[in-house]
């Protein structure tokens, strides 16, 4: 039975539950907006990295650099789009 539960993935799952609980602190504790956002950003991106690397095996094939570049490029363009949009429509309007 144990062979169906590899240590890496079990640890990954436990870690992702821990990250979720940490993120929940912003709900249950009284935090400033800035602190809260930092906590959420850190936990969310750690969780995403966890999924990509441990669960999705992004680095296992010979194409790993193409796959990583693809994801990083995607996230970079998303951040540019979101920050640019907010800059234009909210922060500097």
């Amino acid at each position, binding site marked *: 039975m144990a062979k*169906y539960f590899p240590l890496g*993935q079990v640890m990954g799952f436990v870690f992702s539950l821990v990250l979720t609980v940490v993120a*929940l602190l912003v709900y249950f504790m009284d935090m400033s907006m800035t602190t809260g956002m930092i906590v959420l950003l850190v936990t969310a991106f750690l969780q*995403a990295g966890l*999924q990509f690397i441990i*669960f999705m095996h992004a680095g296992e*094939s010979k194409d790993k650099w193409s796959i990583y570049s693809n994801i990083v490029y*995607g996230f970079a363009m*998303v951040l540019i789009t979101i920050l640019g949009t907010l800059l234009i429509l909210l922060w500097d309007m």
Partner: protein
Amino acid sequence: MAKVDHSVPLEYSTEENDLKIFGFWVFLGAEIMLFGTLFAAYFTLVDRTGSGPSGAEIFEITPVLAETFLLLTSSFTIGLAIHAMRLGSKKATLTFMGITLALGLAFLSVEIYEFLHYVHVGAGITVSAFTSILLTTLGTHGLHVTVGFFWGLFIMIQIAKRGLNPETANKSFIFSLYWHFLDVVWIFIFSFIYLKGMM
């Protein structure tokens, strides 16, 4: 049949399989941008509630937590399904996939309950810019889960009928990428829509 390379896992073992996995990663790049755009629109419109309610007024922590743990666990079990597949156990693969889809279905049920709740408290999709973008973002994710449910079901039927071969293994692996990715998206929804909204 095409050439099978036995030095790599079954799902990578033919040239076609290798191409499909790579292509799907590129597709996930497009999905990152799709949800990124929805987030950009959400952050722009989040405070534009018009005469409707705001996020803090309508979000409930219990269903959100339930959804989060259901989806996180299903992401874990689909990972186990792929691990079992690499060990060559058809039965274990099908069991873990079955659990994954059951969890997915449970997630969808809670989400449908949540949507009905929103409509009930006067936050239907046509009420304000905020409710429009909220329900569209959640709905796009929910639609992905729904499509994934049927896709996973079809793959289970094929594994049951045809066994684990390069083709079914490849499909299962790609499906697992999709399912994990939906979990990634949910983490961002959970953090930046719900938790930030209730902070």
